[in-house]
């Protein structure tokens, strides 16, 4: 892999909530190379959105480092961040709430062009409208007058209008139904090809992620527990949590008998993260050594997991410590 475009190193993010500390992120490290699409999956409450908001610096992380193109912007002030924001954009989950209800589409799309002083904004406006496959007739409408799919296309157009290099997609297809989901994913892939974009694609929907991502990160309780190439993770999930997640994907064939792996109880509160492996209290395979923090074990090329079952066994069939 070439030098990463985005690098997140040991990021933690804590909030105070009614006197207790919520550990939303617990040392997340990841890299995204230029032109890559990296998927980030995990159940709700695992810190996906907190990570997204930290990366675009709507939040200030508690510790750790954020680097874009080698520049550390973890502690940049608003004024300096505004330059970064030309390159690093985000698409929110629900465009109904993420687009100003009283602005017209035209105004929404022109704003990033004006803010980042893109030359010939009118030309770029019609160009970006073409790119997201919206008719010029939507320009005079407000978000409330559009369909759900059109709204998300407007949100995507607004994010890519000033030609960013990196886009965080925070569950971009979660607010629309299945048929529109497919066309949005196709659009996102097309945009990536044409504009040379790099994506961090956040989702709780594994089947969506499988079709668009080169690499996958699996998050649990504010931590990355497994990462690797998408096929590799799907073919040989190493962390027990990943296996549980994969076994829960619905298969659209009534003849197929699914064997769902059991998972115990509810995710623990992020105010009281378990010691050692965070998945330990819900894991059927938990053993004594899981009470200690688990290192990453290499499962395959670029594929590693923080689970004792991913470690090399005496017979040598699983992996070696990374």
């Amino acid at each position, binding site marked *: 892999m070439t030098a990463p475009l985005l690098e997140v190193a040991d990021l933690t993010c804590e909030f105070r909530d009614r006197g207790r500390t919520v550990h939303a992120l617990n040392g997340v490290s990841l890299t995204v190379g230029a032109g890559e699409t990296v998927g980030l999956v995990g159940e709700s409450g695992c810190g996906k959105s907190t990570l997204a908001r930290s990366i675009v610096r709507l939040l200030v992380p508690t510790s750790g480092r954020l680097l874009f193109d080698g520049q550390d912007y973890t502690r940049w002030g608003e004024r300096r961040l505004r330059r970064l924001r030309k390159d690093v954009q*985000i698409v929110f989950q629900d465009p109904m*709430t*993420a687009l100003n209800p009283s602005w017209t589409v035209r105004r929404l799309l022109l*704003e990033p062009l004006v803010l980042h002083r893109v030359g010939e904004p009118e030309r770029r406006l019609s160009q970006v409208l073409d790119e997201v496959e919206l008719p010029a007739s939507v320009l005079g409408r407000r978000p409330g007058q559009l369909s759900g799919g059109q709204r998300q296309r407007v949100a995507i157009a607004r994010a890519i209008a000033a030609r960013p290099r990196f886009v965080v997609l925070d569950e971009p297809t979660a607010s629309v139904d299945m048929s529109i989901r497919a066309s949005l994913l196709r659009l996102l892939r097309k945009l990536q090809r044409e504009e040379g974009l790099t994506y961090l694609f956040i989702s709780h929907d594994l089947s969506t992620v499988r079709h668009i991502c080169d690499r996958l990160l699996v998050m649990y309780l504010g931590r990355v527990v497994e990462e690797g190439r998408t096929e590799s993770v799907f073919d040989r999930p190493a962390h027990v949590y990943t296996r549980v997640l994969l076994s829960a994907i619905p298969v659209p064939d009534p003849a197929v008998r699914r064997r769902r792996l059991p998972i115990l109880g509810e995710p623990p509160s992020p105010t009281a993260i378990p010691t050692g492996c965070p998945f330990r209290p819900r894991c059927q395979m938990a053993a004594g050594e899981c009470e200690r923090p688990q290192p990453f074990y290499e499962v395959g090329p670029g594929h590693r997991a923080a689970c004792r079952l991913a470690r090399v066994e005496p017979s040598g069939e699983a992996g070696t410590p990374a």
Partner: protein
Amino acid sequence: MAVQGARPLPIVGVPSRRRRLGVSALVGLGILAVLIVLWAWGALAPPRDPLATDPASQLLPPGPGHLMGTDTYGRDVLSRVMAGAGLDLAIAASVTGVSFVVGVLVGALAGYHGGWIDDVVLRVVDVILSFPAFVLALAITAVLGNSVRNVVIAIAVAYTPYFVRLTRGEILSARRADYADNARAIGNPSWRIVLLHLLPNCIVPALVQASLTMGWSILDASGLSFLGLGIKPPTPEWGVEVGEGASNIVSGEWWTSVFPGLAITLAVLSFNLLGEAIQARFRPRR
């Protein structure tokens, strides 16, 4: 042929996009129009000079020569009510303009910035609001001296806190909205987020308040003048006119006070109705 004759089905339950103006809006606008016509007429071609005294025609009852009669000094009450319309509406507009602009901006700043700015603003607002508006205005004119400008300042100070409170509250909830985060993520500086993104969605309560403030400030301005702490007597202002005519009511010359008093009532009524109409027009919006 059945198809040819078919009419489109009536669409039930789809509200028309632009609702017609309600009754309160129509009545409010109607009264306001009458007052503005009165003022324009008085300014362009008054029946009589509102300041010209005439010892020969003191306290004449309403009749053909003087439609609203004359006062103690023989001045034409109708002309004075007309001239008062201009002054009182101007005072109301100035008060509302000043308190609206100052209040909305300070409220938006406090609500968006939070922290110590919010604390300071809220304490000042609480102090001002702990006085009844009229008593506060009374005290300020007593200190500043009575002139039209000081009356405007006094009443504006008393009403600004309402705009601060309303706008602060609206901004406080709007700034948590996703579109505020989106605006920041796209590269907006804070002032643009507040002024261009948040305020337009937070302004309706302040507009309603502005309409009510128009009415109340007319009431307060004329009240101050009635008590001798507002506009000075020969000036044709409704409160002054009511005050000057007050002693005549006992002796039966009711018209010197009742007509300017009626003007005050109608003006306040019209602005209250308009406020109600603005609220009804914008509230159900999502």
